[in-house]
């Protein structure tokens, strides 16, 4: 339960956000139960805004209910929800345009690196760009025409905005150490080149559908100028992989991918040493490009395959300075969190008779920094937004007064189905590469679930307000048909 207060001037410039939260963590401690509502929520309570004052007070409360742990977004959806709902409410009360209010309060591109009042140092971003982009994607100017068409069908129509930021690529060990963590959150990769020139890459992250086997292989293959089919990604077997910290917190690419990139750099560095020896040149004269090690300014070169083979059958290496074999391990400990951000616009139709809400459009303009594999990024945003729509409209874990779980199966826990969501309109062309990891990536796994719930709820409130239900300023999630109808008829 959160109470959030926003102080601003009459032009809508933010002065302060004050948040008081009571977080139910269930009956027992678990891995992230107390981290989620405190560090992963409190530190995001400035949002993408240059608000000068932020106060957050979180009490975690043990109750006789199931223990909680990190769920997609882990604290950042809560932060975004509180911020974007109170900003939306403020715009309505003061009669201000929600897009203009965001614009005037956004951190601007000349302010980076920007340290917020709640301790995070945003490295880079362009929040105006994603807002402009989503407005273009959503044809905001055409909304009134669409609203009239919905009205002709007997439905209310509303539009809801959410401008979000999050901290992921978890986590810089020195930062979380200051916050009390006793474990570092680096990750690791071992790249083993075989004599045949194909590679096994052992990674500490684990893929359960996010496509690491595809995108990690793609990155390695790109860096080495070899076919992707030559790269095997090995994960999930602790007997085979270096010790890693796993997949969560949108970190696999940013942290493990960076470790892997460093390991490949070490492979290239050794490859240059081998090439120098084979080509009888100085190491400093060796360049590596498009899968070939060359002596600069000449056409003397060796392919990656020739180097790999040589590494395993050498007979004349200067063994003091050059060992056989071509296998390197690297660790990567992030210097900072990464800060993906974006702007979401949701349109809903509301049936006044039943209170049913239909999401008829959902537009996402996200800044994930460099994009490695567009199809995978889209898939992550699709799934995250679907999850957020579920949270906003129908998913609900609840107990009766005796602590009996009422939503213990899909008979009562309502998951969104294919019919409950539209195609999502997803864009990631606004890219401000992360300044502090080798790949320049920010992570995208949780973004959809972080930005979407307030976009949906803002859209519902907008629809009701436009429909004349001026007394409805908030409905708690899930915004079920019964709750919508009850709010309208209160």
């Amino acid at each position, binding site marked *: 339960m959160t109470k959030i207060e926003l102080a601003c001037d009459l032009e809508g410039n933010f002065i302060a956000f004050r948040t008081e939260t009571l977080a139910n963590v269930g009956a027992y401690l678990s891995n992230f139960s107390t981290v989620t509502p405190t560090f992963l929520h409190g530190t995001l309570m400035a949002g993408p805004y240059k608000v000068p004052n932020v106060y957050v007070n979180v009490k975690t409360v043990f109750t006789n209910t199931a223990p909680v742990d990190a769920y997609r977004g882990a604290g950042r959806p809560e932060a975004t929800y509180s911020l974007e709902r109170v900003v939306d409410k403020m715009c309505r009360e003061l009669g201000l345009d929600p897009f203009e209010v965001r614009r005037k309060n956004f951190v601007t591109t000349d302010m980076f690196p920007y340290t917020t009042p709640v301790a995070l140092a945003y490295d880079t971003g362009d929040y105006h760009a994603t807002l402009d982009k989503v407005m273009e994607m959503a044809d905001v100017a055409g909304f009134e025409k669409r609203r009239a068409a919905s009205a002709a069908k007997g439905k209310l129509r509303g539009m809801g905005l959410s401008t979000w930021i999050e901290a992921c690529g978890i986590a810089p060990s020195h930062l979380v150490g200051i916050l009390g963590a006793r474990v570092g959150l680096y990750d690791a990769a071992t790249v083993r080149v075989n004599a045949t020139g194909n590679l096994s890459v052992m990674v500490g992250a684990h893929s359960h559908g996010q496509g690491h086997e595809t995108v990690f292989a793609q990155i390695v293959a790109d860096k080495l100028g070899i076919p992707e089919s030559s790269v095997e990604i090995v994960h999930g077997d602790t007997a085979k992989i270096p010790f890693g910290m796993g997949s969560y917190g949108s970190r696999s690419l940013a942290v493990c991918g960076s470790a892997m990139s460093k390991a490949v750099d070490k492979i290239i560095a050794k490859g240059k040493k081998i090439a120098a020896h084979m080509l009888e040149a100085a190491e400093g004269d060796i360049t590596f490009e498009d899968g070939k090690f060359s002596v600069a300014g000449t056409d003397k070169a060796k392919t990656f395959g020739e180097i790999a083979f040589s590494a395993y059958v050498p007979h004349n290496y200067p063994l003091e300075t050059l060992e056989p074999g071509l296998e390197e391990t690297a660790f990567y400990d992030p210097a900072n969190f990464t800060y993906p951000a974006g702007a979401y616009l949701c349109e809903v139709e509301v049936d006044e008779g039943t209170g*049913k809400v239909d999401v008829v459009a959902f537009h996402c303009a996200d800044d994930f920094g460099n994009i490695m594999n567009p199809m995978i990024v889209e898939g992550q945003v699709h799934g995250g937004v679907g999850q957020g729509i579920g949270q906003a409209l*129908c998913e609900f874990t609840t107990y009766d007064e005796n602590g009996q779980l009422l939503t213990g199966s899909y008979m009562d826990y*309502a998951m969104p189905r294919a019919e409950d969501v539209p195609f999502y309109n997803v864009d990631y062309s606004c890219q401000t590469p992360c300044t502090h990891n080798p790949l320049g990536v920010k992570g995208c796994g949780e973004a959809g679930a972080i930005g979407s719930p307030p976009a949906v709820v803002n859209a519902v409130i907008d629809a009701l307000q436009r429909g004349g239900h001026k007394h409805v300023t908030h409905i708690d999630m899930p915004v*079920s048909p*019964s709750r919508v*109808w009850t709010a309208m008829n209160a």
Partner: protein
Amino acid sequence: MHNFDFVKPATIADAVKALGADGAQPLSGGQTLIPTMKQRLAAPTVLVSLTGIGEMKGVCMGDGGLHIGAATSHAVVAQEAASSYPALAALAGGIGDPAVRNKGTIGGSLANNDPAACYPSAVLASGATVVTNKRKIAADDYFQGMFSTALAEGEIITSVIFPIPQKAAYVKFNQPASRFALTAVFVAKYAGGVRVAVTGASAGGVFRWAEAEAALSSNFSASAIAGLSADASDMIGDLHGTQAYRANLVKVLTGRAVTAAG
């Protein structure tokens, strides 16, 4: 689930005999009974499948209206009743999902009488006749409360006869998790009057909304019920909807069903 012996008779007579055994229960589509047995809320020692009985399957016009064999799946009803009784076919086509519709049966639905099931509202609104291996039961006598029917121990529904109405429509508002009816209304207009049967709303199961029937019998249009309201105190209130909300749905869906009926 506890174990049991499974038998699949080919005739009604064999089924009745098999059901005479101690701890024997009938199994039709199984879409409700099997999940119930998984929870150990039912533990028959003998399960008598009824879906191997040819004489209990099929959709055809006959004396008194549309005859539907009790072991006929929802998918088959949705397909084969479409020309004779479109509103009934549409109801069948909206139960569960495609896979559930290939197994679930009208007999199973009626014998179970879940207070949020769809078929009870069609049967009650149509004034249909429930035909068992022993007798014929009028719809108004059949439904006796949540999960409770007029069926005696060991009595099997063999078919249901639906008189064909002049106009009819079924409007269902889904409980978002189970896709059962949070509230649903079947409106049917016959020469003798209009019947309005509501499911999903009352703890007593399907019921007829008498005031609406009277108003609609003299004026079959949504405006006829504009001044009416269903009694909220009789309604179910749960995490999916308050009593007042269900009462509201009864009214809204009845109006929409009347409009849809044409």
